[in-house]
């Protein structure tokens, strides 16, 4: 929690494998000591079993240019803390490796005294991560074969 005072500190957003619901719960629970927080907003990305040309996505294999992604994330964090000064904490985690359909791959978590700032920050950070972070996703089909996922 003390790290919140230093939004510019270098962080690694990447975790190997899916994001466990218990990890999310632990992260939420850590904020119980912060009595200035009134609102938490969370976004979670879950792998969909999309059907593409008759084949069904079984999993996404995520890779990333991690150094660049973490640098971009640091910039996005700074933008968000500037724009929403009442935000007290911002946590972002993204999976690497094979994430099966139904598993969680992306976790954005902002806290603030009031809900508007947390809500807007999560929307901004979620959208910017998808746009600016060099993360690559290979959608692997149950029937064999794959396609490369593409945001927008």
């Amino acid at each position: 929690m003390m790290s919140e005072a230093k939004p510019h500190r270098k962080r690694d957003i990447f975790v190997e494998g899916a994001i466990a619901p218990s990890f999310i719960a632990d992260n939420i629970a850590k904020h119980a000591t912060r009595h200035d927080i009134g609102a938490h907003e969370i976004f979670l990305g879950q792998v969909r079993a999309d059907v593409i040309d008759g084949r069904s996505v079984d999993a996404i294999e995520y890779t990333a240019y991690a150094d660049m992604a973490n640098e971009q994330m640091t910039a996005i964090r700074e933008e968000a803390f500037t724009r929403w000064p009442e935000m007290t904490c911002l946590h972002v985690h993204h999976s690497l490796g094979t994430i099966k359909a139904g598993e969680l791959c992306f976790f954005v978590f902002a806290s603030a005294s009031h809900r508007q700032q947390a809500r807007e920050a999560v929307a901004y950070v979620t959208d910017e991560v998808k746009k600016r972070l060099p993360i690559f996703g290979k959608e692997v089909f149950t029937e064999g074969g794959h396609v490369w996922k593409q945001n927008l």
Partner: protein
Amino acid sequence: MEVLLFGLIAEKAGADRIQLDASSLDQLRALLSARVEGLAQMSYAIAVDRRVVQNDMPFTGAEEIAVLPPFAGG
């Protein structure tokens, strides 16, 4: 110089890093097109020292160069 490749482009090239000697971004693009089949038809970006660069620029050879297919995070 070593060039980092990711995702679809690494797959097409059959490698996640290749050696190329380019003295500028434009020269790099030309060398990449010759080296990676179908690259000219793909959408990709080039990052120099972890920032996407659009316009031609000279290289000293000390840059960290990466070739990035479309992003798919989230």
